[in-house]
């Protein structure tokens, strides 16, 4: 599973049915950070902070 998939899983863990698009280069997961990816909040979705996403990623 990719780092970008981990981000998506963290977002949906925080908010089920959250509306977003993530794009990023698929690289070695050990070297990637949230800043390597573009997160677009869609349909008026309230953005979730990268800090909160990272915290959730660390939990999962």
């Amino acid at each position: 599973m990719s780092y970008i998939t981990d981000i998506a899983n963290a977002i949906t863990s925080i908010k089920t049915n959250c509306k977003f698009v993530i794009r990023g280069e698929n690289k070695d997961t050990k070297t990637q950070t949230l800043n390597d990816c573009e997160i677009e909040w869609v349909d008026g979705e309230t953005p979730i902070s990268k800090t909160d996403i990272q915290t959730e990623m660390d939990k999962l």
Partner: protein
Amino acid sequence: MAFATIGNSALTGSIDLTSKVTGTLPTVNGGTGSTSFSPGKVLQVINASTTTETINSTNSYTDTGITASITPSSTSSKILINVCAQGVGKANNNTWAQLKLLRNATDLIVFEQRGGYTGDTSVNKIGACACTYLDSPSTTSATTYKVQLMSGNNSSYAQVGDSNPNSTITLMEILV
């Protein structure tokens, strides 16, 4: 029925096909009766690949990064498009990946209608989805072909490019 005439002088040594073979191919032998042919030719090939991963949790299409551009040399040319979108799948919740091919902003075909569909909440990574499409763009302007993705059920997410694969798109201009 005459098939072809080979000049006597050509029966020894090399045969000059440009002047010593005349006549028409009979249709009974699979010919067309024509005296000349204009076979299809590949005029140019454009290939692009990407390791971009795209995740979409909505049922609005978004670009995947699978894209390539070509400038046809004639308005009568056809463009043969081969797409291989790798790492396709869906997350939990009852959704699926839907992929479509576009020429500029024009929809050409939805080539994956229910990617990864399970009818339940299980995760399903299905690997590659491919498409071959013959287009008639009728232009000599630069033309961009691309693949877009959406999550069919607008619940949870669908993705392309999971786990570091190379997705590819190849464009071939065919003279017809």
